[in-house]
């Protein structure tokens, strides 16, 4: 096998070597606990503060409003569970969407089952974008939180976050957004968009795994979710993951600095990849919005073939991608996102997600499309669905 072509950057990314380099001292010589009083530990505390500032700068936020967590999933859990608890006197209604990450959906299901929450799951259109009138209609006096992801992890669709923030503000409802895929991929200003809470994770932007943050606007009453010591302004207990936090700060600064140039290049490559696939492979559909999508996200469905087979064949050429087919989810149902945009099961089973990075080259994509053409044709030759389709077409 030759070179590895990694097209699964929505799953995770390589920790950038310069990020690792900045983290390393905090594993070895600067191992002090930021809570300790002596001068030696002050360096750890300073490092955490610096990273908090680096991240806040990207969002136009106050650095006191950034709370480090163990990742996007914890941030999502904290945002919803703590807000539900803090605002239960006002009501029990949550509005979210059908295409959220499971960190949101399963948290909502938990709140429904265990805490008697009432949850509205908004539909999305065929491009995976919510309708603002649906959101307006769903609002009741009991609505305490609106949680809509900034951009979808599977199909890359970017939601009208500014408009949602405006609606939430008008109605005095908290607005949370899961920005795990969007942070440092699209410009975000928490004030401009009226975002009260925002979840993010370092390993999606060339930072380390196991570290994330929740932005909580000053005044939002969310209390502690992890109980213990007084870290993170008494809101998130546990000794700080100092190397992780340092890595996150470095990764955020790096990704924000390169955002304009990097995403411009990624958009060009993304559209090149989409163009080649759509032009050169028959019976294929682009999933997600053609323009309002993450710069690095390509998601297509190949009719008559199944996603896991596609992934295994691509893997044999060193190409890493992902799929929303049932067989890759460990259940019998294909991705809830692909179902929500109205794809029939058999089309959803044939989905392929390729997510690019700054390292992706045009040559990588040409190699991928060349292989993909053969793979899809071979799998179709083996497919009874294709056989039936061709026979019907010739009849």
């Amino acid at each position, binding site marked *: 096998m030759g070179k590895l072509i990694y097209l699964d950057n929505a799953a995770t990314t390589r920790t950038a070597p310069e990020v690792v380099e900045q983290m390393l001292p905090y594993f070895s010589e600067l191992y002090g606990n930021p809570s300790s009083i002596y001068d030696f530990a002050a360096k750890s505390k300073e490092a955490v503060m610096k990273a908090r500032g680096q991240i806040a700068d990207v969002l136009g936020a106050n650095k006191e409003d950034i709370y480090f967590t163990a990742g996007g999933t914890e941030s999502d859990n904290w945002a919803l569970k703590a807000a539900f608890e803090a605002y239960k006197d006002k009501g029990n209604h949550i509005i979210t969407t059908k295409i959220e990450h499971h960190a949101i959906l399963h948290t909502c299901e938990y709140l429904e089952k265990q805490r008697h929450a009432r949850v509205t799951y908004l539909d999305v259109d065929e491009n995976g974008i919510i309708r603002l009138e649906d959101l307006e209609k769903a609002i009741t006096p009991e609505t305490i939180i609106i949680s809509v992801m900034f951009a979808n992890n599977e199909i890359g669709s970017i939601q009208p976050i500014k408009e949602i923030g405006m609606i939430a503000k008008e109605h005095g409802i908290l607005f949370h957004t899961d920005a795990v895929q969007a942070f440092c991929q699209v410009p975000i200003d928490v004030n401009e968009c009226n975002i009260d809470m925002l979840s993010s994770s370092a390993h999606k932007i060339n930072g380390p795994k196991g570290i994330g943050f929740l932005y909580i606007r000053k005044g939002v009453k969310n209390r502690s979710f992890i109980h213990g010591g007084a870290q993170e302004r008494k809101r998130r207990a546990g000794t700080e993951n100092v190397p992780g936090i340092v890595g996150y700060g470095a990764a955020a600064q790096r990704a924000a600095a390169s955002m304009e140039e990097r995403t411009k290049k990624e958009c060009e490559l993304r559209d090149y990849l989409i163009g080649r696939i759509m032009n050169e492979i028959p019976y294929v559909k682009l999933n997600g919005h053609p323009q309002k999508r993450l710069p690095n996200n390509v998601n297509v469905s190949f009719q008559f073939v*199944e996603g896991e087979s596609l992934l*295994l*064949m691509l893997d044999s050429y060193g190409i890493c991608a992902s799929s929303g087919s049932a*067989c890759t989810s460990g259940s019998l149902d*294909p991705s809830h996102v692909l179902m929500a945009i109205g794809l029939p099961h*058999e089309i959803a089973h044939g989905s392929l997600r390729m997510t690019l990075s700054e390292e992706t080259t045009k040559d990588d994509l040409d190699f991928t499309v060349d292989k993909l053409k053969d793979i899809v044709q071979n799998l179709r030759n*083996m497919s*009874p669905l294709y*056989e039936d389709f061709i026979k019907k077409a010739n009849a």
Partner: protein
Amino acid sequence: MYSEKVMDHFQNPRNVGEIENASGVGTVGNAKCGDIMRIFLDIDEDTHIIKDCKFKTFGCGAAVATSSMATEMVKGKTIEEAMQVTNKAVMEALDGLPPVKIHCSLLAEEAIHAALWDYAEKHHITIEGLKKPKSDIHEGEEEEEY
């Protein structure tokens, strides 16, 4: 995730294709669950020997590999012997499948039975132990709650 044998049968599947004027054809599974298997049999009417067996499958690696292995296992056998080729036997021949993929292996046994059922109906014969194929092999199968 998969054994070497599964990967071999997935990447180099044996007996892919169709048999024109097949003695029996069986299709099982559904697109909803993401796997459909079609088996073609060429059976000698006098000896009841399966002279040839081909398949077409829409499905994951496990579904393709079990189709390939199952066709290998029934080729050259009599109908009665082919009836003994169970999903367990196919799985063992593939050095096992991950637990979430066991339902895929059921397809192969069901597809062979469906093709034999088709043959039996066409020739007005009864094959001992053969039941009418289910229209949906996932009937009654439930997802794990956790």
